[in-house]
């Protein structure tokens, strides 16, 4: 009688961007889809995000940013994940990230970018299908 494995997701707001409506709506939607969601609030540094992901042993990280600072912050986050050996964590992002920046972000290892207007259902499906299946 094993307890069903739960997908653990960290929803993170890196940098000073204070728009959290989307992050909170997504957090709630993922919770309602049966996942365990850790939301650490606003103004997280890359170091805090990665350390939290490590301690909470999350399967997935969702980064939300609308300030335009993704070009500076995402590379640092992906670099730290590598350093700490968290290469099996699936990372996706959302917010205001121009289409032309998407290929560069994906090259860093971010699996998918969800722009404004993405239905939460789509994000839920994506996480269910792409969360790493770890022992």
């Amino acid at each position, binding site marked *: 009688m094993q307890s069903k494995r739960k997908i653990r997701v960290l929803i993170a707001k890196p*940098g000073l961007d204070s728009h959290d*409506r989307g992050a909170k709506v997504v957090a709630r939607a993922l919770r309602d889809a049966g996942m365990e969601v850790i939301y650490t609030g606003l103004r997280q540094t890359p170091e805090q995000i990665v350390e939290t992901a490590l301690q909470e042993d999350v399967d997935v990280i969702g980064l939300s940013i609308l300030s*335009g*600072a993704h070009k500076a912050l995402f590379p640092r986050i992906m670099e730290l994940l590598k350093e700490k050996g968290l290469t099996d964590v699936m990372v996706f992002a959302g917010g205001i990230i121009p289409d032309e920046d998407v290929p560069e972000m994906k090259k860093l290892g971010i699996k998918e970018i969800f722009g*404004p207007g993405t239905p939460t259902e789509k994000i839920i499906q994506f996480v269910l299908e792409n969360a790493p299946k770890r022992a």
Partner: protein
Amino acid sequence: MFEKEKVEEIKRERERWEKTTLPNWIRQCPECKSEFKNHSGILIKRVYTPEDIENLDYMRDLGFPGEYPFTRGLHATMYRGRLWTMRMFAGYGTAEDTNKRFKYLLSEGETGLSTAFDYPTIMGYDSDHPMARGEVGVCGVAISSLQDMEVLFNGIPLDKVTTSMTINGPAPILLAMYIAVGDKQGVPREKLGGTTQNDNLKEFFAQKLCIFPPKPSVKLTTDVIEYCARHLPKWNPVSISGYHIREAGATALQELAFTLYDGIAYVESTLERGLKVDDFAHRLSFFFASHNDFFEEIAKFRAARRLWARIMKERFHAKNPRSMWMRMHVQTSGCTLTAQQPLNNVVRTTIQALAAVLGGTQSLHTNSFDEALCLPTEEAVRVALRTQQIIAYESGVTNTVDPLGGSYYVEALTKEMEEKAMEYIQKIDDMGGAVAAIEKGFFQKEIADSAYRYQREVEEKKRIIVGVNEFAIEEEECPIELLRIDPKVEKEQIERLQKLKRERDNRKVKEILEKLHYAAEKEENLIPTIIEAVKAYATLGEITDVLRKVYGEYKELIVI
């Protein structure tokens, strides 16, 4: 407003109509919903008649423009005498960049300045702070010291323009800098005109740019109100904001109620300082959003004016009619704009702007169509400005005051919003006021629930967003040019800042910061000391750090 017998007759006729004419139509063409409700939860009837406003008393509830309760407008002639201020929010990159954008907008016909600061500035960090990395100048102008402020207003005479500054926690500091620039230009302080947003309460549950905990934040807001009441007669010390509350996901009703409550809280905190209500209330200003539901927004603006006038008269016993004025600035809604098919946003902004004008706003910002993609390009912001100008000069809606006054629908909706907002206000009173409600997570929960409900409606297609969940285009190409901030900006800012720190009188800075620390602990009004500090070229971050030490930093209460 109507004769009782006439209303009875209309009622009878309506019932007849519902039994005879209506069913035929419904059979041929059923209504697309069983119930029509707006997002605030108010039921919208099929058709409105005098029945719906039979208890409306023209003189008591509407009055004439320029007279209590000001429902129809603050001024007797409104736009026939003077148009609303076209005030476009602008700011990015360095002070030079924004100075250029200011001048561009003024040359294109805008009539007031409005400043957007970057995230580090808003959070009280200098451009060289670790938390500022990657954020300098990216979504607003970077201002770390008086030096930057001087560049920002270079060539702009402060006695000829009014400037709004969207700044909250550090508002005292930016105001001090503005005063210092005015001093340098030789403009007498009594002539300085503008607004500091300075509405810290809403930060805790909407815009989330809180630096200090609630009590010291209210104290700082009140410092500014008090200082302006005594020394800056033309300055609006606070712009009590509903815009951010709405953008965070609240309904129009919640926006109305929570904003007015914040206003009540600031009046109370200022009265506690010993000022009389008529000393300062005439300079309180408000800031609302204008969203897509056209008539709901118009009703909201009218209800806001009437409600505030009644509150100021009955709750606070204001005597001067100007103390009862709800002067408002409106911004069209950012969150309703889409990244998909961005040109559609011009239409959305137009509808929203028109609602604000028909609602009687004093000042208006229209969003640019590329809002959901990046900061506005020159072309986009010009179209947004033209939107206002076309409404003002071509549409004819400005030819009469409050053209929708008397509409059965609009008056019924105005009344209902006013009543429901009063219920919220009573509820928050019972909870112990704004700060108590914030600590209980009341506003946060209301907003989070409304936001979630909205999203569910969109995903279930109960709410259509054109181009997104309906009428979408596959494989859309981005048709427009985006504005990008040069990463050089951060580097330049940091260099400039470090140069300033080397060249200024550091002993003087240290002294004044100590003086500020002491004044803060003694709970004095900090504005005079902060003016001294900025003139000594103490930086924004240094000043904020002193206050952080005294007040502590706020840790968010999260409610999803």
